[in-house]
């Protein structure tokens, strides 16, 4: 499968990258490890005329686990193998280890994982497959095959790292032609968007680095992933949880899920009230049920949506029970 011709840009600085992006509005993609972009290009999913490879920009490779700073080009392999991350942010380590396969993780980057293209049974198909059915909103078409309407795309956010970084309270440093800015990771994703417009990134905006605040280290964190096979498969559900206790009482508790909707989401309104309380089997179970009640998966992945919803309860409960047991 060859790729359609494109112009390849290899900027050495962020400025250069932004410059190239600015001169080809709407007709470029950034390329990190390429493990998401290139399969999509091979399937002719919105290929662009300009590919801006980021690998030559040194600061994107920054890797300082002790400081909790990770350049966007840090690979999943680096993350899963790093002893400091395993010690301080075990949930992140676990999440990285459960992405795809070791071969994908060798190239796949942190930034690419946070911005991985949303997925759908009707989208991740070859051009002729999609032509046969009729193209959909997300590529070349004007309707949706999952929820029949013409307004909104329900493609599923399927990155594994976002939930585990959400519970760590991660922030992302961004840069665009308008200059640098920092967003809470939670704010990078747009709950009012859809499977197509899923982030709040400005045109051409780049993820420079991810920063994890030091408080995360005092907490236990974990990541649990629902998938049919223990390798290859994107998450059908991913649950990240973080817990720290003060004596018996909860100092902080955070939960985030991915693989269910168009964006990864956390549940501060559910977890907040539990801070200061003592976690019991009942309160964990109740929380898990309420999280389940809030998520709305649709039928565009391998496993049935009602099942993925039910598993949300199980996975949340198990994750928290684990963390409580380990603290």
């Amino acid at each position, binding site marked *: *499968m*060859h*790729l*359609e*011709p*494109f*112009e*390849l840009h*290899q900027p050495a600085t962020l400025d250069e990258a932004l410059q190239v992006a600015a001169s080809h509005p709407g007709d470029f993609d950034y*390329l990190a490890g*390429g*493990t998401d972009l*290139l*399969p999509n290009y*091979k*399937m002719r999913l919105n290929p662009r005329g300009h*590919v801006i*490879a980021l*690998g030559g920009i040194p600061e994107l490779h920054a890797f300082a686990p002790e400081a909790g700073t990770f350049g966007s080009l840090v690979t999943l*392999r680096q993350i899963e193998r790093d002893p400091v991350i395993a010690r301080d942010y075990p949930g992140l380590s676990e999440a990285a280890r459960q992405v*795809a*396969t*070791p*071969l*994908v993780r*060798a*190239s796949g980057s942190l930034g690419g994982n946070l911005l991985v293209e949303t997925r759908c049974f009707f989208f991740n198909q070859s051009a002729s497959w999609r032509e046969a059915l009729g193209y959909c909103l997300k590529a070349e078409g004007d309707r949706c095959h999952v929820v029949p309407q013409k307004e909104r795309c329900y493609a599923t956010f399927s990155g594994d790292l976002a939930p585990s970084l959400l519970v760590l309270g991660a922030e992302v440093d961004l840069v665009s032609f308008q200059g640098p800015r920092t967003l809470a990771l939670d704010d990078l994703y747009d709950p009012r968007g859809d499977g197509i417009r899923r982030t709040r990134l400005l045109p051409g905006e780049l993820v420079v680095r991810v920063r994890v605040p030091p408080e995360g280290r005092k907490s236990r964190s974990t990541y649990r992933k629902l998938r049919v096979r*223990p*390798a*290859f498969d994107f998450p059908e559900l991913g649950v990240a949880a973080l817990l720290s206790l003060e004596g018996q009482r909860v100092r902080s508790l955070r939960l985030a899920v991915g693989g269910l909707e168009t964006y990864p989401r956390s549940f501060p309104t559910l977890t907040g009230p539990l801070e200061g309380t003592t976690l019991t089997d009942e309160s964990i179970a109740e929380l898990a049920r309420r999280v389940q009640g809030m998520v709305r998966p649709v039928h565009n992945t391998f496993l049935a949506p009602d099942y993925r919803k039910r598993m949300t309860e199980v996975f949340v409960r198990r994750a928290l029970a684990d963390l409580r047991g380990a603290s």
Partner: protein
Amino acid sequence: MTASAPLHLKVNGVPLERSVPPNRILLDLLREDLNLTGTKRGCDLGTCGCCTVLLDGVPTLSCLTLARLAEGAEVTTIEGLGEHGELTALQRAFVEHGATQCGFCTPGFLLAATALLRDHPTPSRQEIQEALSGNLCRCTGYVKILEAVEAACRTGLPAPSP
């Protein structure tokens, strides 16, 4: 530029300079341009591991790598394992333990396993499974592949690789 540009890389220890267009995939460069057909194409989409090569020592999917981005890299393909026509301990173990049947997945497994044993000379069975979990084999059920890797750990390390 959509036009070709020179690419420099070392393939199995031999420095090369080639003119390569931006949309050339490393797998195609190896198989079509350099005639290194030991690297296999099973899916072209990152889902089988048959195209695995070592890129600066790291097992990497050549079907998802732009050739031009391998500038300056050292690529090791299956043709680059072993020296002077001698099989590595791992290759020998694959032969002796029946770890290859149709053989189509074999180069990918060998490269992934070579890197594993270089970094981790005595992995547990679970670690071997994990490390090889990006490679599909439809013939062996993986059993003899795992046995071969374990046997290679016992008999000696693979020849030092790049």
